[in-house]
């Protein structure tokens, strides 16, 4: 599912303290792409992800995902859209600690009629032997893998990842990225990943650089395997 942004603007604050988080941002993300959005702190990465995924509204511009104008959708329609097409992976995992690993994935799977088999997904992310554990019994990397499995369970067309390795060390971070890369290819899921870690950009098929709310560059890339990237470059 491709994503198109046309002249997207988003500001915070009012009057003198009004700050433009996104300033006339346009881009075209191809169906099945693995996009990495790079930029320093305050460049507008998180805002871009939030408006692109429909978690936040925009002031001006157009956002189209798979041909649907999500900027024109009402809250109820956005919820339905997210339910059907969009998955999220957060920096802090955002798992439900009251449920086991398998149950956390089932929460995602039950949203659609024909989801992935949760057990199969957990096998894919290397957690086959941890299904009955609770999140607090897992390491950070393992928790993030549960979060990825949950996001993919409903077969989303687009996966938004907000600094998915931000809380992980290099080894665990590469494992997680490797999984994302593999699942992107296997299921042809469009992945949009924001990070300040420039090394991760080498995984991408498309790299977007942001600075002060503006798109500095967009270029295609020949991806390398996760284990080959330089961490924290």
């Amino acid at each position, binding site marked *: 599912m491709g994503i198109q942004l046309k002249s997207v603007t988003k500001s915070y604050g009012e009057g003198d303290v009004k700050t433009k988080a996104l300033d006339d941002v346009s881009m075209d993300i191809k169906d099945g792409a693995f996009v990495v959005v790079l930029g320093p702190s305050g460049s507008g990465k998180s805002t871009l992800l939030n408006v692109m995924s429909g978690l936040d509204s925009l002031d001006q511009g157009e956002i189209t995902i798979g041909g649907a104008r999500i900027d024109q959708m009402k809250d109820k329609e956005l919820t339905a859209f997210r*339910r059907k097409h969009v998955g999220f992976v957060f920096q802090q995992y955002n798992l439900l600690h009251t449920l086991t690993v398998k149950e956390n994935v089932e929460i995602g799977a039950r949203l659609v009629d024909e989801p992935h088999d949760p057990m199969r997904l957990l096998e894919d992310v290397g957690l086959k032997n941890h299904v009955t554990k609770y999140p*607090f019994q897992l390491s950070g990397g393992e928790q993030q893998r549960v979060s990825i499995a949950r996001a993919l369970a409903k077969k989303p067309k687009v996966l938004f990842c907000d600094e998915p390795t931000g809380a992980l060390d290099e080894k665990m971070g590469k494992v997680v990225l490797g999984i994302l890369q593999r699942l992107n290819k296997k299921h042809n899921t469009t992945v949009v990943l924001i990070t300040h870690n420039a090394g991760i950009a080498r995984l991408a098929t498309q790299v977007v650089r942001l600075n002060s709310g503006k798109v500095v560059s967009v270029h295609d890339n020949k991806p390398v395997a996760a284990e080959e990237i330089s961490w924290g470059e």
Partner: protein
Amino acid sequence: MMFFKHVLRTFGRQKLSVGLLGVLLVVSGFIYTVMSLSVASVQNASEAFFDTSNQEDVVVQVSPFVGFDEAANAPCDVAPMTALSALYAADQACFEALLAVRLDVVADATEGMDWEWRFHKDGFIDPEGKRHRARILLDNNTINVALIESGTFPDMGEVAVSRTYARLNDIDIGDSVRVGDATYTISGFVLFPDYNLPIFEHLFAFDSAVTTPMAMHEDDFHAFPSSIGVVLSGVGEKTHDALEHALQDTTFVTMVIMTENNPRSGAIYAELDGSQAMGLFLSIAIASIGMIIVGIMVAKTISDDRRALGVFKSMGTTTREIITPYVVAIGVFAVLTLTLGALLGAWVAPWMRGLYLRFYLLPEGDIVYRVSDAMLGIALPTLVVLGLSIWRLEVTIGDRPVAMVAPVVAKPRPVKRAWMRRIINRFHVLTRLQVALLMRQWMKVAVYVFGVSMALYLVFISLSMRGVFDRTMHDYYGNHRYESVVQCDIPASCDANGHERGLTLEAHVAGEQATIIGLEPTSTLYPLVDRRGNNLLDSLEDGLIISRSFQDLSRLRVGDTVTISWFGGEVDVDVIAITDGYPGAHVYVNRVWLSEQAFGRDDVFNRLYTEETASDDAGDFVWHRRAMMSQLEELNTGYRVMIMLMVGASLSIAVIVVYLLSVLTVEGRSYEMSLFKVLGYEPREISRVILGGYTKVNLILFVVMVPMVVFSFMWLRRYFLEWFGMYFPLYVVVVDVIVAAVLFALMSLFGQFHAKKKIARYSLQEAMKRYQV
């Protein structure tokens, strides 16, 4: 100063919840103060009155008839089964000699006790053409001595009435009033310390606006043309059981009633002692709920502020600097709201005292606000609220700053028991989530369950209190069809021609004291119907019919065989039906049968029920049903105001508690609700998953509460009947259950709706950053 601003703004964000919490505290302070001040003013004056008047400790009720043995051994000529009042009218000397013998018998059997006869007559007082009831008591020498509150004790041609009656009827000392057929001058205001002499047949039918105790000169008393009543008043240390044991072979003794347990004084004692306790209990109960909610709100506010507090702490701010603004803000809030409640309570207390004095014959004391009232009504609840808040703050701030700044990820409590795990694992994943969310925060759930249970109980009490007095007496008399009841002596002193006859005796039925009423099975004036309205009079030929109130007391069932005993006789009879209505401990039999069993012949009666209004000289005493009902209506109005106040207070407390708990519960789940929304769940699904558990808890609570309330009401009815002879018909009827369910659902849904609307305004991406699962 910055910290103060921070705290004020934090609480300011929850204006509605804080406002409702304030209402809760105001109500708490109000209830405690109004009960405490009004009761204390009456209680202190009453205790002094009871001491100086040498109030009876026990009353022995005696047979109103001369027994066969007594007649045989009497110091004068008297036929057996002659009514004492008839003997008094015919031969006062013989009457006094017979009572002297009875007193000696009782005194010999109960060594260490002092006894004195108590005489009374009933009459009418007609101030300015009104027709009110008066119970004229002959003053005693040692026990139950009258208290003259103002003026003097009556001389010949004078009477004294109660001060409350005089005030409510614009009567002053020196005024003239008609009592019976003569005119008397009011010499003063009087009170008697015995409350075992109800003005009417019904124990509760006493209203100082239309009835009064009266003192008369002894000669006037004896000359007054009315039937005399006697009881034996006693003072001493003996217990009820000891007295019953000592008097068990004394055939003329029908009942031994301790003052603390007797129908009127017991109720007064309970009211006096209990009101303060009840006021205290109520205010503490309400304040406890308030405090728990304050605790939860403070905990929630602190949790929301956890990161900010962590930052303050990491900057080197001391614990005291962080805690002080919270303590000051909460303390000032509690003191202000509780003081407002206390002021309102002090304002209303004189009115409440007036209500007590109208229905209880007690002396009036001043309303004084004491230090102890401030301590218990304001200081104690404030300290508890503060203590709870400080404890919660200490726990939160006790963490290391780095831990406070980091997201809170609490560990769940996996179900350890295998059988439970097996059951839970069979549930759908969403049900498992509901269970997990409840178990994970069991403390909050426990608070919710406690608060909602209390609120539901208040709702049921409020609903049941509506029309409670209509159910007790008004409906009862309203269903009767006679116009007057004429009281006659035995042997018959009135003309029964053309009237329905009745025979009423005090008796023991299945070991319980009861009034046994003999009726004609063909009666058209005194209906006996069951709950479905079927006529039961026809079946009177076959056995005993008991009132629903007596069934509560005795727990008898249809088909049981019971023993009825009265002065010297006893007989076994089957219970054949239960009649609707709440007249107290009443049972019904065929009059002819009762006459034969008690007197050995079939024509004895002491009541006449008349279709037309009877004249006042138709018998020894006559009372009129419509007049009785209009007095009850007036009495009811006073109680209705009091009950409306209680119902209003209870309902508003219940509404506030359920609303606040619902809001707090929903807001406590804001993270999970936001996460589910991000994942793509629809609002309805989110409600089902996150709040569905609470809906089930509500449902279970409601289903469990209904039988609990039914049982507790059953216990209360029995308690009041057993200890005070007072029937308090608290019932849960189907309509009340439906109304309670609707009210409860509306309260919960309104709270949830309000909270969800608030959560909907949260930014999803910000909610994800909170990550407090």
